[in-house]
């Protein structure tokens, strides 16, 4: 339990915390992962072939491998950043898109789009998913205010259960229309179906990411409470809703294009914050890199274990993420004197 106390001074003095070599190291790790991600697959590509591909290999790269890599990086980065922003806004370390109903609400939105508008385009589904996930997160934030005792663990429990109720509604609707199988596809995050022409909407998270980065300092301030933020001359409500929309857009877009990746938005920001302090603007880029790296690693491992088949990234991330989450819970419980 001595590790967290040593990081805290670094964060409060404002120096140290994130150093340049952190970013460089993260970048290097990411580059190796990216190379593996491009090279591993049903047809192996060496370094030489990546640099001067034949016509077939070029096609493999542009249709499948490069879109996949881009989707992995964007999905990992944006879900982690979404988690970070949510944790700052609510000042609660156990809040994230996958523990507050945001993701489940997005899945419900996709289902509604399919039910009511027939076979809509990816963009149509996405629009409705964004609307429902904003609404779902809003309901969660309202519930959060009702709970007087905002202990982190209670909030996480309520969030998980709320997500469970939302997905029960989704299953209920899907069962009546025989859509359970589709539901399974949407809810298991996997990059195997990411192909050229079917993933481009994911670039939308870049826009949300820029907005998030520009408002980063304000998120830090409103995390200190409504009165404090208002005293500093900030419009609390407006920033809260900005954060809400940024988070919901990120979560919904990733769910529509990739599927859900459990615990990602929770564990990555928590581990990064533990190591590097909690100044949003400083930590945000590292969080994005770490999230991208984590998902990349899960995906490469998933493709490598039962080569030439693959294990969905959600399964691997769920297994690793679950263990890390439990460690975080026990750690925070141990930190509080019983």
């Amino acid at each position, binding site marked *: 339990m001595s590790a967290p106390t040593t990081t805290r001074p670094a964060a409060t003095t404002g120096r140290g915390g994130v150093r340049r070599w952190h970013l460089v190291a993260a970048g290097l790790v990411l580059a190796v992962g990216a190379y593996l991600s491009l090279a591993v697959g049903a047809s192996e590509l060496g370094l030489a072939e990546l640099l001067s591909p034949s016509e077939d290999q070029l096609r493999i790269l542009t249709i499948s491998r490069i879109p996949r890599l881009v989707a992995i990086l964007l999905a990992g980065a944006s879900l982690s950043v979404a988690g970070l922003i949510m944790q700052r806004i609510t000042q609660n370390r156990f809040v994230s898109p996958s523990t507050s109903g945001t993701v489940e609400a997005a899945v419900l939105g996709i289902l509604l789009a399919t039910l009511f508008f027939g076979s809509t385009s990816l963009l149509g589904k996405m629009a409705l998913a964004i609307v429902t996930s904003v609404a779902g997160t809003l309901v969660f934030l309202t519930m959060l205010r009702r709970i007087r005792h905002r202990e982190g*663990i209670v909030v996480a429990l309520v969030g*998980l259960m709320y997500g469970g109720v939302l997905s029960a509604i989704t299953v209920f609707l899907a069962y009546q229309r025989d859509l359970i199988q589709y539901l399974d596809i949407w809810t298991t995050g996997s990059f195997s179906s990411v192909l050229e022409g079917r993933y481009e909407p994911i670039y939308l998270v870049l826009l949300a990411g820029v907005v998030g980065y520009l408002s980063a300092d304000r998120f830090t301030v409103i995390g200190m409470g409504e009165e404090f933020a208002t005293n500093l001359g900030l419009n609390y409500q407006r920033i809260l809703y900005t954060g809400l929309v940024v988070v919901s857009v990120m979560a919904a877009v990733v769910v529509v294009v990739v599927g859900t990746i459990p615990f990602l938005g929770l564990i990555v920001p928590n581990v990064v914050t533990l190591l590097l302090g909690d100044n949003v603007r400083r930590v945000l880029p590292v969080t994005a890199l770490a999230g991208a790296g984590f998902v990349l690693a899960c995906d490469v491992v998933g493709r490598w274990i039962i080569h030439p088949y693959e*294990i969905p990234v959600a399964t691997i991330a769920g297994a690793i993420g679950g263990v890390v989450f439990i460690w975080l819970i026990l750690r925070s419980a141990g930190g509080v004197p*019983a």
Partner: protein
Amino acid sequence: MTALAARADHRSPEEAARRRRVRLTLGALALLCVLFVVAYLLYDVRGSWAYAMDLRGRQVGSLVVVGVAAGASSLVFQTVAGSRILTPGVMGFDALYLLVQTSIVFVFGSTTFMMLGTGERFLVNAGVLTLFGIVLFRWLFRSSSHNLLVLVLVGVVLGSLFASLTSFASRLLDPNEFLTLQDVMFASFSTVALDLLVVTAVVTVVALVALVPLLRYLDVVDLGRDNAVALGVRYHRVVTLTLAVVTVLVATSTALVGPMLFLGLIVANLARQLLPTHRHTDLVLGSCLVGVLCTVAGQFVVGHLMDQGTTLSVVVNLVGGIYFILLLMRTVRL
């Protein structure tokens, strides 16, 4: 136990009235259970009676076993854990059962697995689960016994972790092996096999019989660990034995219908609300009856009246999830 007997003779009028009310409630519950079982069997039978009775008999049988197992296991688990919001389902126990099953197939291969009969297969699974469960829960109860909510959250996360690991292991399996596993894992109770039903019913009865001598001690365990130890109860022994019975009961209900996260939570809390008593003999009996009522009546509505428009577990998850959130919000305000 002479002291207990002596006290029983000098009951106050209020106590006597309360006893009467408990007995009346139990009788009414039993009557309702019988009514719904009969209704389930006889409602709108078309075509061959022999066929309908055979099929529906098996369905009702498995529903009853599940209701009893979920009711009894959740209620005593709540007592041991000292909390109303902790049940085996919430703690990820059901998910653990599926993980154990998948791991067995993964390690030994499906041919060995299928060569065992239904009974042996179930016993192997239940045995491994019991071992696992006791180790896991002893560790959990010991490591953070002071913070209940930590325990619940860890349990919930463990549930989803086990589910991920199960899916991970099943992806590593040969597709043929996975098929055999799937048949075993998703035994839907609309077409439950007779031999599995018999095995689980026998095991449930044995587990309940084993539970009976523990019930008296559980009344004391309910007072909290320190009080129980001070009153001379061998706390660890009682808790371990109870947990063993609970794992066996969970294994039976999961083997029949798969994980039903909130069934036990609803049932046990309903029973505690209906019965104004702290005696575990009455509480467990009531919880079993409420459990049977929930599963049989629920399946009657879902299957017969709604014409299979949804599944029982979806309804249970929906109702149970909302109930759990309300429970949490209320608990926190204490």
